[in-house]
């Protein structure tokens, strides 16, 4: 059977969707394989050397390790298709419930960080890129490369030293849910994330603005006498934005990784801290579930990013 898709746009989106789905599938396969291919038996490792044979066997059954690997994989996919990511060995709560409980907080401050970073990066990147002054460009690049090279936990520690220890501007740690109250705890992590993101995003935007600037069509636009606002959007920003969007969607994934550390430092009850807790407690189902969740989210984000970039600029390859 041959699929008939009318417009090239639909065909491209369809192709990209298939790719996103197939990568998601492999994400699940890898998450499955990690626990099985590593040396040693997870069940006996978790219960320790002195554990009774029966307890180990019971845990193996609970983890689904008591059947052959192929059967395990079938069961695993079956569970996943029902949205069942397993149950925590520590608390007995289902993994999907843990995720729905902890992820909103993480999403909140990541979304804020991205919003601010985007708003700050555009003027910086466009202004310095368009001026194309060598001295500005290189001092900017040097500054941002230092920020990027500095680990986020060190930035966080220094920020805590200044804002929490020396002045009482932010609580050292803790969290309180609810909108206005939570910002007291979240503003510092958001500020740190924003600083790092601005450094990354504005660098890419700057580089593509510099590229755009020397393109022939920009010259044509000037000579055509395009009005200033139209010029800013159609001749500077829109042609430069695609690489930035692609990068942002990719950075979202990396930022999710970095949240693990920030949440631990600021004791925020988000998904990252949950993961670290699960690792320290050898809570395999939770680790595996969060791993799949992160993987699939990253795939989804890069799908959205590619799509947005393509809609902005048809030169982008999907």
């Amino acid at each position, binding site marked *: 059977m041959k699929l008939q898709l009318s417009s090239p746009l639909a065909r491209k989106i369809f192709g990209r969707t298939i790719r996103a789905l197939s990568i998601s599938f492999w994400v699940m396969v890898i998450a499955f394989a990690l626990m099985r291919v590593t040396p040693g038996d997870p069940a006996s490792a978790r219960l320790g050397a002195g554990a009774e044979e029966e307890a180990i066997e019971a845990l193996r059954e609970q983890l689904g390790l008591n059947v052959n690997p192929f059967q395990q994989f079938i069961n695993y996919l079956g569970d996943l298709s029902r949205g069942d990511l397993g149950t925590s060995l520590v608390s007995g709560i289902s993994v999907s419930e843990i995720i729905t409980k902890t992820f909103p907080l993480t999403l909140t401050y990541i979304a804020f960080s991205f919003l601010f970073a985007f708003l700050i990066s555009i003027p910086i990147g466009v202004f310095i890129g368009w001026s194309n002054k060598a001295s500005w460009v290189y001092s900017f690049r040097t500054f941002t490369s230092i920020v990027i090279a500095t680990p986020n936990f060190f930035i966080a520690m220094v920020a805590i030293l200044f804002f929490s220890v020396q002045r009482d501007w932010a609580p050292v740690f803790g969290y309180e849910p609810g909108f206005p109250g939570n910002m007291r705890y979240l503003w510092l992590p958001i500020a740190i994330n924003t600083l790092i993101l601005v450094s990354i995003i504005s660098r890419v935007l700057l580089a593509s603005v510099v590229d755009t*600037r020397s393109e022939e069509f920009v*010259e044509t636009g*000037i*000579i055509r006498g395009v009005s200033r606002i139209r010029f800013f959007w159609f001749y500077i920003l829109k*042609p430069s934005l695609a690489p930035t969007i692609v990068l942002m969607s990719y950075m979202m994934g990396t930022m999710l990784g970095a949240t693990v550390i920030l949440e631990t430092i600021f004791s925020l009850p988000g998904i990252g801290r949950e993961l670290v807790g699960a690792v320290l407690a050898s809570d395999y189902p939770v680790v595996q579930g969060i791993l799949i969740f992160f993987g699939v989210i990253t795939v989804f984000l890069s799908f959205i990013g590619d799509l947005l970039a393509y809609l902005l600029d048809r030169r982008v390859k999907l």
Partner: protein
Amino acid sequence: MSNVLAKIQDIRIDVRVTRRLRLRIVDTASLTIQKGQLLGLIGESGSGKTMLCRALVGTLNRRGAYVHSGSIDFEGIDLVKASKKDWRNIRGHKIGYIPQSALAGPNPVMRIGAQLAEAITQGGRKSKEEVRRRSIELLELVQIRRPEVVLKQYPYELSGGMKQRVMIACAIAQNPKLIVADEPTTGLDVTVQAEIMELLRNIRKEFDTSIILVSHDLQLINSVCDDIVVMHAGATIEKVPSSKVTAALHPYTHALYDSRIDLVEPRGKLRTIKGQPPSVGKWPTGCRFADRCDFVKDVCRSTDPTPFVQVNDSQWSACIRHKEIYGGAK
């Protein structure tokens, strides 16, 4: 001489390389363009022909260049000193521009329709219906088939020749008095090239527009243009009607003409111009062609700058020895 549309007089253009270092890229260049004239501007790469065009359309500063001295008179306005307001009135209205590279011509992130609309509405707001009618009219004028479809397409969906036709349609949207076409056919197939040239000629005939056609291909220019201006090392060195190229009054023009490949007989020797054009910043004093010229004498190197003078009613030359070499004007 009310027939003159634009007059570039003795212009010098410098480019900032570093904070201190400045280089002359155009010096002692003059040319006049008549109303309705198709003028060819020819020169090797680095001869400053593109920079001269940029001066005409006012985008020198984008490349860190500026007019050092001289003037460009366009309908009574000196473009060198033109204010932003003057430029607003000129750009898109009186001077149209067809860009250099066919492949990077139209804005890649705008539909063809949007770009045409942009050019059409430069003259003031128009209703959607009006814009659409005019867009289709323009596309038909540049001989694009199925204009309704093309309006909705993005540049990447068009061939190089199509893109360049769109650029021409944008350039003529306001019926400008002058169109600057900077090597509009580089990178296009020879057949497409011929079609584009034919199109430019038709536009000139139909709207009485003046066109400056820049190229490094003398043969092309010679077959299309009325007058030819030759540039070498930043200076205009010859102006000659295309019908009289063989009677040119500068050795460089002859050298260019003689090095045409189609003049070579089968198995004959290709004639080339000896040496390299002097690179920017290393121009010799006196005639900048002296090192490559067969007729060079000491006086060529000692007269600086070599004056670009009118020899007869149709020809100009910057060769101080043209009378000796070519026996005066015929």
